[in-house]
């Protein structure tokens, strides 16, 4: 086991990397455990790795590709000396200081790393429908990533399940390839923002199936495994079931926070999001464990934007820095916050 670090950052989306840039510039020599490659948003770079054009991140008047934005943030953190490791945390112990973090075997007696402060920025990932055979159908007609898989459904009819911004964004993107995109939504109106709704209503390749829930995946068994051919859907108003055939089905029904690691150790809301701004502290990013901070989507189910995540990452970095100073772990706060 190596020395006790000043700060360990778990997660590497806009929140984690912004925290890395700030703590690195403050000479706190942050260790960033960025996660491991995966095809969910639980991967280095986070949810933006599964998007295409980001139009609303300030400073990019022509827009910027999500993966490119994340790779630039990573470069920027590296430039100031952040120690970024492509590893996945398997266990944490936040009950005693220094805090302990395990990579690999969670039963190992010795933790892999220890730190005086921990910044949690593990983000959120897509919810699934939890219907039978779901996992094995992913990649065989079922997808959670339009930007990754849309290409393979050229001139086919596609279904998107969901009614929020990400569902509409996926559906709009998929019309580049598909002959028709049907949005299946359980209610009779969208949760998506006005601008996204307008875009969808204007797109003549997009149709809506309102008040409809998904009951079952329909698939054919083949030599290469099951292959999706559609959905059995249920109209909640009429009570009728029907079959909806589709070459591809994309699920965009929302997200859940990646907080399994912290169950029983950090205070959470009922929906699993971390609670920050704990009572008795002026630190907005503070969790209920003194010295542990959280930023980004793991503690935010309201705004969930790249820019709000980055902003909260900055706050967590400054909070961690002040905490270290208050505990005489560093001699002074180096991030200039008064101008």
């Amino acid at each position, binding site marked *: 086991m190596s020395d006790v670090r000043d700060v360990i950052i778990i997660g590497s989306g806009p929140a984690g990397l912004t925290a890395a840039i700030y703590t690195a510039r403050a000479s706190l020599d942050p260790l960033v455990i960025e996660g491991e490659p995966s095809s969910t948003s639980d991967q280095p770079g986070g949810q933006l790795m599964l998007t*295409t054009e980001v139009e609303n991140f300030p400073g990019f008047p022509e827009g910027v590709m999500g993966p490119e934005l994340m790779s630039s943030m990573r470069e920027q953190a590296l430039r100031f000396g952040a120690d970024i490791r492509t590893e996945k945390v398997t266990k944490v112990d936040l009950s005693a200081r220094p805090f302990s973090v395990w990579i690999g075997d969670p039963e190992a007696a010795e933790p892999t790393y220890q730190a005086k402060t921990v910044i949690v920025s593990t983000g959120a990932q897509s919810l699934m429908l939890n219907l039978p055979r779901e996992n094995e159908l992913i990649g065989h007609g079922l*997808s959670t990533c339009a930007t*990754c898989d849309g290409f393979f459904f050229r001139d086919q009819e596609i279904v998107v399940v969901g009614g929020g911004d990400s569902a509409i964004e996926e559906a709009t993107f998929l019309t580049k390839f598909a002959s028709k995109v049907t949005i299946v939504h359980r209610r009779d109106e969208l949760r998506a923002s006005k601008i996204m709704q307008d875009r969808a209503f204007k797109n003549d390749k997009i149709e809506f199936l309102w008040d409809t829930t998904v009951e079952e995946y329909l698939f054919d068994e083949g030599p290469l495994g099951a292959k999706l051919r559609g959905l059995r859907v249920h109209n909640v108003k009429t009570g009728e079931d029907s079959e909806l055939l589709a070459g591809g089905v994309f699920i965009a029904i929302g997200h859940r926070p990646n907080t399994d690691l912290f169950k029983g150790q950090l205070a959470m809301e009922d929906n699993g999001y971390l609670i920050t701004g704990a009572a008795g502290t002026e630190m907005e990013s503070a969790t209920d464990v003194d010295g542990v901070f959280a930023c980004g989507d793991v503690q935010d189910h309201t705004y969930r934007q790249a820019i709000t995540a980055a902003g909260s990452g900055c706050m967590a970095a400054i909070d961690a820095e002040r905490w270290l100073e208050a505990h005489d772990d560093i001699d002074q706060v180096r991030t200039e916050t008064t101008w």
Partner: protein
Amino acid sequence: MAATTVTDATFDEVIGSADEAVIVDFWAEWCGPCKMIAPVLDEIAAEQAGKVKVVKLNVDENQDTARRFDVMSIPTLIVFKDGQPAKKMIGAKGKGALLEDLAEFL
């Protein structure tokens, strides 16, 4: 040896003439997770040289081959043994998990 490139035109020859197992990485420029696993596959190619060979196929430019093997999501890795597809793996994962999946060929 790092991963090399195959195309629709060279696919059959490269796969058919290999003595070792061949891992074909179906990828594209616009796929974030594909970029994440590219360096991992290069490492595996270098470390397991002689046991497996890693080749990359760009699905944008080589749609025939992607269609032929029913690729519907990327990254997809298909391992070919004696010219025949032996295992299909979908989605990006870390090096440890990838090596576990590939154990039977190493």
